């Protein structure tokens, strides 16, 4: 791959970076060559890390997602990979529209040159004099807190919205695999590693952690399907930096 020697560009987020790579390398957005894109993407993220730039968790989550799509697309039956790629294409097109419109808005900012006035201060009594039904107040309260009444405000997490996802790092999964598998040579069911996964991101991270450990010969996989067994070849958890899991 060509060396990127120019000053690292700053991107608004993983979508911005992906669009840039697709455009730069003339990739087909409607049929993304996933292996190429993963390589380009991870190469860029690595450079960000080497340049000591702050890498937002969103970039890492996208890396995990791309690697997952790549992994799935290597399987003999790859309908899922096609679906995942289509999903990504849709999101990229949507974000491309967003950038396009943002650019158009940025070009018509003449209105920011028009100045307006503060309201004049005249002596009027600002006291509110309308009347309302007490039930309007309760309706407003229930509207904020929802059907389930709470004594205390719920944690901020509860208000983060409906599609917020929790990001699981591969590194943390490597640690938890070591913990789960216990001593060197002890055999465990492969599937058991995924038993307590909480989300898709969790599953992906666990899977990537297994691949990483197998690649670096810390872990041995045997058998297939439900019969697959897994055991540790190493005694301790070495330092796996998050940069190594490509």
């Amino acid at each position, binding site marked *: 791959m060509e060396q990127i020697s120019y000053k690292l560009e700053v991107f608004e987020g993983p979508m911005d970076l992906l669009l840039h790579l697709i455009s730069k390398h003339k990739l087909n957005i409607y049929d993304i060559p996933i292996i190429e894109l993963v390589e380009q993407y991870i190469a860029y993220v690595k450079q960000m890390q080497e340049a000591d730039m702050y890498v937002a968790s969103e970039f890492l989550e996208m890396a995990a997602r791309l690697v997952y799509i790549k992994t799935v697309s290597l399987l003999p039956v790859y309908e899922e990979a096609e679906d995942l790629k289509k999903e990504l294409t849709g999101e990229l097109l949507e974000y491309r529209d967003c950038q396009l419109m943002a650019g158009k808005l940025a070009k018509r900012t003449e209105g920011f040159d028009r100045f307006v006035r503060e309201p004049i201060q005249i002596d009027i009594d600002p006291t509110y004099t309308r009347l309302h039904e007490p039930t309007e*107040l309760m309706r*407003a309260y229930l509207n*904020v807190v929802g059907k389930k009444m709470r004594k205390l405000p719920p944690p901020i997490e509860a208000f983060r919205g409906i599609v917020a996802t929790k990001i699981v790092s591969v590194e943390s999964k490597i640690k938890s695999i070591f913990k789960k598998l216990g001593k060197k040579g002890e055999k465990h069911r492969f599937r058991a590693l995924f038993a307590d996964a909480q989300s898709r991101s969790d599953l992906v991270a666990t899977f990537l952690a297994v691949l990483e450990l197998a690649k670096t010969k810390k872990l041995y996989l045997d058998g297939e399907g439900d019969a697959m067994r897994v055991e540790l070849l190493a005694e301790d958890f070495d330092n796996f930096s998050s940069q190594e899991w490509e």
Partner: protein
Amino acid sequence: MVNAKELQAAAEAVLFSVGEPIELERIAAALEIEAESTEQLLMNLSASLDERGSGICLLKLGSKYQLSSRAQFAPQIRSVLEIKRNAPLSQAAFEVLAVIAYNQPVTKSFVEQVRGVDCSGVIATLCQKKLVEEKGRLDLPGRPLLYGTTPEFLRCFSVSSLEELPELPNHDAEQSIEATLEAAEAEAEHPTETQDE
């Protein structure tokens, strides 16, 4: 900028945007012309505003200048500002008011935690409207201000005390919002004798 008409318009725009009375010199500096020419310019502006019967006029206050609405339109201005003051509360304002009313005294951060967004502006407006007021400070690091409702708040909702506000549904009850509201509304229409809480 060369011609006098454009300079006059620039002076008008500057006076309009600044709002407050402003020194002749500052206008002159912004227009990059002499103070004397600026004075002449402002006299012309004033004359032209008068001539065309504008609702705005130029005031000279000592060495400062300010655009102002003409005194004769004070009733209309007052009427608009009064209508504006009494515009119905926004949904955001209602929500903040409800959170304060049912949990008082509360800090701003409590309200913000419940609503999930910054509420400084809304709380300030409610204070101005005298529906909410400061109620001391919380004995915690930073000593945050506490807010509670006012007597005007009680009048606004036609209740004589906070106890008369509709009761919130039971914490464990699986009752829907609609059912709770219906019950509260029915209660309001046919009050069973007032009982002590």
